[in-house]
């Protein structure tokens, strides 16, 4: 069943020389139990998309249009109070900046217990038991003692895991996890992703996973959406995307991946820099960096087109790309 449905989402911030178009018409859906990974260039609008779903962008200054539906309820037009209740109880969020999301003046135990007491009406003793259990489940040693510590007393990866504990504390229907494993070593990362998968199996939680880690994507995602300059430029199953991308940006991204089993002299990087979101070029936003660009690409913006096998690409020459990348 479709849990989250985003349609033609656009977000702009005011800028010194006109609006900064951070998100330019994103549409995607997440089903119960499904894991959709969002990949993409740094600055391409992944976090802003997540923040728009959570309703935590200040409006204004941000201008938000389009539609965000959770189980058939439109969130964007919902009154503040209802909106906050939904993003507090039905959607959990792991923020990219754990330090800013945790309150520095309260112990982490207090923060988790508070959520459980306010939202679930738990007694203090029950809330404490549950908080310890949650902190323990994200593999923090000596959870019973450490819940009395303040955020600054934890390592980067531990804070990230505290955020995860907080985000799953209310058993949300949908978890939005923005770079949840950037500070985690591979062993803990595997355990945390397994914990999320377990919750998904038990409760059907949908997972919108924003990450740069292609290894994690390959291990856990069902489907993948690739973002560039505020748009989704490619969508497909994880197998489809890794076996042969249908967009030149994805192609370049996969080629940039360092390998653990060998050492290359120089890493491949896509040449050039992403376009200025305040002054997007005409035509395809990737054309200045694209080795396959033709005249058509300089003038016509390629829409996200459906391809066979239920995948999609926003490239005029997707057939050529597929032909070259299929293995």
């Amino acid at each position: 069943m479709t849990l989250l449905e985003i349609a033609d989402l656009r977000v702009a911030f005011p800028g010194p020389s006109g609006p900064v178009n951070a998100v330019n018409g994103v549409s995607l859906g997440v089903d119960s139990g499904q894991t959709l990974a969002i990949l993409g260039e740094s600055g391409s609008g992944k976090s802003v998309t997540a923040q728009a779903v959570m309703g935590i962008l200040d409006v204004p200054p941000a201008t938000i249009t389009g539609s965000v539906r959770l189980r058939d309820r439109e969130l964007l037009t919902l009154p503040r109070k209802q909106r906050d209740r939904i993003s507090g109880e039905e959607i959990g969020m792991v923020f990219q900046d754990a330090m800013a999301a945790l309150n520095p003046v309260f112990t982490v135990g207090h923060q988790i217990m508070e959520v459980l007491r306010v939202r679930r009406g738990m007694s203090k003793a029950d809330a404490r038991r549950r908080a310890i259990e949650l902190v323990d489940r994200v593999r923090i040693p000596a959870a019973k003692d450490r819940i009395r510590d303040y955020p600054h007393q934890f390592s980067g990866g531990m804070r990230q895991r505290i955020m995860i504990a907080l985000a799953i504390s209310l058993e949300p229907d949908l978890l939005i996890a923005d770079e949840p494993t950037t500070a985690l070593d591979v062993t803990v990362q595997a355990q945390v992703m397994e914990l999320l998968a377990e919750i998904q199996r038990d409760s059907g939680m949908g997972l919108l996973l924003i990450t740069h880690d292609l290894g994690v994507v390959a291990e856990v995602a069902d489907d993948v959406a690739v973002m560039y300059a505020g748009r989704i430029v490619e969508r497909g199953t994880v197998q489809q995307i890794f076996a042969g991308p249908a967009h030149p940006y994805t192609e370049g991204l996969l080629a940039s991946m360092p390998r653990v089993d060998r050492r290359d002299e120089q890493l491949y990087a896509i040449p050039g820099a992403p376009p200025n979101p305040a002054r997007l070029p005409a035509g395809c936003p990737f054309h200045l960096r694209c080795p396959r660009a033709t005249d058509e690409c300089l003038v016509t913006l390629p829409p996200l087109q459906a391809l066979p096998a239920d995948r999609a690409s926003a490239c005029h020459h997707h057939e050529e790309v597929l032909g070259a990348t299929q293995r």
Partner: protein
Amino acid sequence: MPPSDDVVLRVENLVKHFPVKGRIPFVSGGVVKAVDGVSFDLRRGETLGVVGESGCGKSTLARMLVGLEQPTSGAVRFGRSVVHQARGRELRALRRRIQIVLQDPYTSLNPRRTIREILLQPFEIHPDVLDRRRRVERIKELLDLVGLDPSLHLDRYPHQFSGGQRQRIGIARALALNPDVIVCDEPVSALDVSVQAQVVNLLERLQEELGVAYVFIAHDLSVVRHISDRVAVMYLGKLVETGPEIDLYEAPRHPYTSALLSAVPVPDPAGRGERKRILLAGDPPSPVNPPSGCRFRTRCWQATDTCATTEPPLAAGEHPVACHYPLAA
């Protein structure tokens, strides 16, 4: 410049213990042994990668290397200076020569300063480095180097940037004064792999041109492999194995290193679930009460009685390992 035998930074038996609050007020609950006796040399122009489990003490070590944290004991030596004892003019000189890129790109940039102000600050603290009139030009160059457009970004505030953009601003700031040593704590973890490749290539190019040495802390073992000359593996506050990149990756000798390498996710969904991962038994032990003898013994599949009573030392040499029964090389 290739790495030389010249030591730029010498780390001697470095220890950091944090007191923890006890259950009973005013009675100490013991100490978190975040870093517990770490020694190594960093050579001029080399890159030492540091890897290890979350919470094993990497960031604490990094902060001590640059004097942001006082060690409980031990010393970091740079030339004739001891980092934590330096004051006044000596301290200022050290601050210029040893830079850090902090793990958290959100809290390490002052939210009330524009990027222009943040990047000009190092030159205001060290005015003799560059003529005032050339500074703006220089910070534009720096932004360009890390792949950010100066015309677009210079007069914005940190919260108006994405995570990866902020991380690159931190790198530009560390590069500003042409230091001898840059301690990078997870410098590329918030970047997509293409920008990450750009930054890693940039760091390598600067090293070749300027001979700067890096301590490169990252959880991504592929990136560490790519950039490092030598790699140090840390477990619960101690180094358990150090060695040249190729030896350590191709022939790990400590059981923890081999478990770590086996857990690297392979970026290929086709092989999902078929990989041979060494799953570590049990939970990571608490740094307040580390296990006796070898700290890894509670999760080691080769542990014997000796491991519980005798701590294996990290010997000297090219590829030392702190284990009573090292894996065959």
